[in-house]
């Protein structure tokens, strides 16, 4: 049967009218994709800085991405120029070396080149060199040569719109430029899952899990994804409307389901961020239990950072967050998951495990209420995961080291809105001085200049800044150690003639 048919409002049934033909008359096992897009967007992701869409092809899609990105950089550069003329800082008069170094300004640098996703790839998010981005590849299963340009595009757009624009997708909205995404338009001979063979033999993995032939996935990637795209995160989107998703390291979600966007966020929480399910055994979502006010029976210490056996200590995992109220990251701030505490019921048990918030993306992922966002503990973990792959600076101009008579020094950071740069000229530091420093007015001589780039996340977003794991964490391992990668220093020895 068509899973959604009896659960949706009449108005939505009308929207699914074309898809109903494919759903009706089939058995549970052979029900597959909607036959036509409910809200097809054939042109691709409409975001201002993203190319892609339309036919596969790294060149065309990438070129669009490059152009969009270039526009973004251009506006940043304008801000930078303004900063340079209006801001002076640093070495003037210090230590007798004299001169002035103009500081400030963001952006500049070269336009972002196209992202190579291969002949079947759609560069849906292109924000910079793959070697310094989280590279996320999504393969398609159950899409034909026709629906790969219609249904697949609409399924992807829906999912990415929520990930990057809605509060419940945060912190991905904030860190959007840290992620490249290639969607592979892998063709199946049949449309939908359960209607015959597909590219990766997607289907029911039992227990409401989705499953694919992982050997086929690996073989496809080897054959079709360019070597330059160092994959950090891989997923398969299945063209079906069943509630079957999997949060393994190879993440699977059903693209035609009404809650596909939430499912992709939730399963990514498992498969890429090592987050636990925050629901209990009662099958009632956030109704597992109320705030215990840090009391209750202690249970096992699990590996995941967002579930704790001890409500008093949170196993050392989120004691820094206790009692805080999570702020939203979108503007205007409409809040998120509210008070961070110890809520009884988590990781499939009703007692002895505690979750950080009453509701969250890892508890009840459904709907668009902001209380289904990632809670503070999970957001911090996601940020650590992102920093595990990248460092703040893509490149510097000129390269670090000795240089003679440069007009400016520039660090090309992933995103000037997220990364601040402090400039130190002969020992004098200017905080948040932008990505470009004018050194034209420096006095003759040799100067030591460094740029420290760092994540400007406030303590509302990241509290654990020690890059160490709590000793109670199982195995002594955690992702917090990656926070140290969020700071990077480039140093030049500048000779002025």
């Amino acid at each position: 049967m068509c899973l959604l048919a009896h659960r949706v409002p009449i108005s939505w049934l009308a929207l699914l009218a074309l898809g109903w033909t494919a759903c009706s008359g089939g058995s549970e096992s052979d029900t597959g994709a909607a036959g036509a897009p409910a809200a097809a967007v054939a042109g691709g992701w409409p975001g201002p800085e993203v190319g892609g869409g339309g036919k596969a092809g790294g060149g065309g899609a990438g070129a669009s991405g490059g152009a969009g990105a270039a526009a973004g950089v251009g506006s940043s550069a304008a801000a930078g120029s303004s900063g340079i003329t209006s801001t002076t800082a640093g070495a003037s008069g210090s230590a007798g070396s004299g001169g002035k170094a103009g500081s400030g300004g963001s952006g500049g640098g070269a336009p972002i080149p196209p992202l190579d996703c291969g002949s079947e790839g759609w560069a849906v998010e292109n924000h910079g060199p793959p070697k310094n981005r989280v590279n996320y590849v999504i393969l398609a299963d159950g899409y034909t040569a026709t629906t790969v340009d219609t249904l697949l595009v609409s399924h992807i757009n829906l999912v990415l719109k929520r990930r990057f624009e809605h509060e419940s997708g945060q912190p991905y909205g904030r860190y959007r430029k840290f992620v490249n995404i290639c969607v592979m338009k892998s063709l199946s001979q049949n449309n939908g899952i359960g209607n015959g063979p597909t590219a990766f033999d997607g289907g029911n993995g039992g227990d409401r899990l989705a499953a694919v032939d992982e050997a086929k996935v690996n073989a496809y990637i080897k054959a079709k994804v360019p070597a330059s795209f160092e994959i950090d995160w891989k997923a398969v989107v299945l063209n079906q409307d069943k509630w079957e998703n999997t949060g393994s390291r190879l993440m699977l979600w059903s693209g035609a389901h009404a809650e596909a966007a939430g499912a992709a966020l939730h399963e990514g929480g498992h498969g890429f961020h090592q987050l636990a399910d925050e629901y209990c055994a009662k099958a009632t979502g956030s109704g597992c239990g109320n705030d215990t006010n840090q009391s209750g029976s202690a249970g096992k210490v699990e590996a995941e950072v967002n579930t704790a056996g001890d409500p008093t200590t949170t196993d050392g995992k989120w004691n820094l967050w206790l009692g805080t109220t999570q702020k939203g990251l979108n503007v205007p701030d409409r809040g998120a998951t509210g008070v961070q505490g110890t809520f009884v019921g988590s990781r499939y048990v009703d007692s002895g495990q505690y979750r950080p918030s009453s509701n969250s993306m890892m508890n009840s992922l459904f709907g668009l209420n902001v209380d289904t966002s990632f809670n503070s503990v999970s957001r911090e973990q996601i940020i650590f995961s992102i920093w595990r792959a990248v460092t703040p600076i893509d490149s510097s101009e000129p390269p670090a080291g000795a240089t003679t008579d440069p007009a400016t020094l520039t660090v090309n950071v992933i995103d000037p809105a997220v990364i601040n740069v402090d400039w130190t000229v002969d020992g004098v530091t200017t905080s948040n001085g932008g990505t470009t420093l004018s050194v034209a007015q420096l006095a003759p001589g040799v100067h030591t200049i460094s740029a420290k780039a760092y994540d400007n996340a406030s303590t509302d977003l990241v509290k654990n800044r020690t890059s160490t794991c709590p000793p109670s964490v199982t195995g002594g391992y955690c992702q917090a150690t990656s926070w140290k990668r969020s700071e990077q220093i480039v140093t030049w020895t500048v000779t002025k003639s």
Partner: protein
Amino acid sequence: MAPKTGRIVGSVLVAGVAWLGFMALRPSAKVPEPEPTKAELRLVESPRVAGRAPPQAELELASAAVPIEAVGSASPPANEPVHPHPITPRHERIYRENQLTFSLDSAVDVEDVPGIRRLLAIYRQEFPEDSLVLQQGYELIANCLEQPGATTRAPAQRFYDTELASTLRRHVRRHCLEKP
């Protein structure tokens, strides 16, 4: 048929038709359904996917349009959907592989070679299929950290060049290929 008998039969027929008509048209014709027990309620709720699933056409996600409900309250909103799946041995196995591989990743991050080797032995034993193409990569990284140089770099380069589906390529590059 005698006239009297005919009248009786006729009256019965008329009464029957009238009764059928009444039963068909009365507003409360349905037999009340029995109240489900608690156990039945849970069985009904478990497979439900969403209590208030929005139509796709309404998925306009501008934050300004987000309906605001009390957040962080102890009481969940009415009609809160159920969690997305039951917990089974398959789920536990996925959790287990996630846990092992994330621990291995963290051991790589802090360059804990004994930790990598210890966890890798467990991972190989429990997941010999290595469907994620990770095990060789972890071993190569441990080798590079232990004995940096051309001997360990060469197989690492081969892994980097050929195992494109492995999420360890970045870390093989970082710990093997870019180390002096």
